[in-house]
């Protein structure tokens, strides 16, 4: 009786362990698949409006620079929506192939919120951070180009906060701080060093 009980308990334990390992591998597999698939969810409705000339501050990994580029894009009248469209145009430069500062094809800007007149909150997609190249310089260039492009085109905005998929994140890809608010003055100083 005792022997049968021991064998039965052992078999049950083994079954639990095998099932646990199987579930864990399924979860890992699903997570890996979700990260590699392009994010095809619609983010926002296309905007319409008269074409406007805006300046994008475009990053270049080699030799490490952020340079102004004038483009003409259709912009809505709402300032937050304008900010979003301008940043989407900027990220569009990075998802092209080839690009001097490559970001994953599904990287995008989900939204821009204006808070209190001087602060902008930029919400990026999960793929924007998950597939971002890792490195102090590349991450710094991304942050500087986003902040400078936004503050240059939205008068009054002096501080920028970057979120990933609606949530605060410690770093962009292991280096650049995403828990802080970026101040336009310190970003200007960085851009001066890059010139």
């Amino acid at each position, binding site marked *: 009786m005792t022997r049968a009980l021991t064998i039965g308990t052992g078999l049950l334990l083994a079954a639990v362990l095998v099932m646990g390992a199987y579930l864990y591998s399924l979860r890992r597999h699903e997570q890996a698949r979700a990260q590699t698939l392009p994010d095809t969810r619609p983010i926002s409705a296309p905007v319409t409006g008269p074409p406007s000339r805006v300046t994008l501050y475009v990053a270049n990994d080699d030799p490490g620079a952020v340079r102004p580029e004038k483009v003409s894009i259709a912009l809505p009248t709402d300032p937050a929506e304008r900010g979003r469209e301008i940043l989407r145009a900027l990220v569009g430069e990075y998802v092209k192939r080839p690009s001097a500062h490559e970001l994953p094809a599904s990287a995008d800007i989900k939204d821009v919120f204006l808070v209190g007149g001087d602060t902008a909150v930029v919400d990026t997609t999960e793929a924007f951070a998950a597939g971002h190249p890792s490195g*102090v310089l*590349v991450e710094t260039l991304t942050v500087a180009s986003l902040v400078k492009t936004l503050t240059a085109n939205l008068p009054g905005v002096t501080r920028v906060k970057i979120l990933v998929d609606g949530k605060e994140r410690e770093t962009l890809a292991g280096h650049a701080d995403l828990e802080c608010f970026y101040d336009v003055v310190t970003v200007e100083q*960085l851009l001066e060093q890059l010139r």
Partner: protein
Amino acid sequence: MLWSNFPPGTRGAARAAAVAALLLVLLASAPSNEEKQLSIYGPRVSYSLPVSQHEGQEYVALLEALEPFGNVAARADGAKWKLRFRNLDAEFRRDASVGKVAGRKVGLPGPFVLENNRGLVPLRALPAILGLMLATRTEYHEAGRRLFLGGVATHFTADSRENGLNLNFTAPVNPLVSTEPGKLRMTFTRDAVVASPNVLRLENPLVSSITFSESNGQAELVVMGRVPLLAQFAADRRAIEIVAAPGEAQNVPPPVLPGVSPAPEPVPAAVAVPPPPTLQSLTARPGFVVMLDAGHGGDDRGALLSETLEEKGVTLAFARRLRSELQAHGISVVMSRDADVTVAVEQRAAMADAARVAIYLTLHAASQGRGVRVYTAMINSASGKPGGFVPWDTAQARYVLSSRALADLIRAELGKHEIPGSELSAPLKPLNNVAAAALAIEVAPSADDVSSVSAGGYQQRIAAAIAEAVVVARPRVEAER
């Protein structure tokens, strides 16, 4: 076993035996105060490696021993461990006492150890293995754990004079100088200084004897003084002048005539010798500590620099090299990690602040660009005297000017070593949280090949440049603390 199981008369003896056994076990397992190390001296590089103990024998990691000489790769394949250096191969098998190096069989005085995919060979076999891999002559000083490659050696002569003693070396030297009562001690970690271990007695009014010895990867010259002594270095670092410390020159006793009277008893040397600038940069002081923070580690691999090269491994190897360089200049170093372990970013800053380090260097590696990028915190400077409580998020504000000055020096030293360097500010965690001069060093490849970022020679040159900059910056950093 319970005490009650022993017969009443033997309980006391059993207890005593158990306590003695426990003490023996504790003593045997207590970590040694001094980490065992091997120093290797080559024509271009000198470095130290940690020595570990396995079954009563001393072992050293073969990959780390070869890294400073160029690209080397190793992989474990079951019980086999294969290493490739330049176009030469070496192969060992776990627990086997024979290996194959550059096509030749090499006997090992103990079994080959495979530990976490690191191949360890008995220390006594290393001279033969390095000799074959580097095709060079080796000379091993076993008692001092010092290995000399390619006939490299720095000899010296002692020239006794009335107002002191001149030590002349055949190559520039960079010893750590310290004083103890009656002694001036020079420790050579990175210099291949050699001599017969002996005591040279002198009939000199200041110096009674010089003793040369080797131990634990270091050579040591101890100058016994009759008065407090001071060491002064020539500009080319090939000569050291031993003179009386300031204020003691007038107390120099007259020269002792041979056979007339015994030498006077040594008097205590000045414990706090006011050092001249050249000496100041060489003498370690309690309180001046550099923290090396090898970026990432453990679960956080950092950037994937190539298919097989992870940032966390590159930063750790570089941190170890930089530690050796700084220690060779007499600078105390603490590491945020010395193994592949996870350390939270904020914990790294907390460690630096708790240790009250003078300089914090966080080390990173990248595949983009060329050379070395030096980063300071992206923060506005704030006035105010350091000390007291500081806000966590802006702890760096009071030190950022000091950080920028150090970054300037590092870039200048990199230029002297012909390494491209640039200087930027960056929003890198945790620079803002460090209450000390704080920089990030990002090492990029030296050539098109990304793997050059992990090349031993390249990392060694960068480490040498940074260490020299820290030595130059030290007086300013100390003054501003």
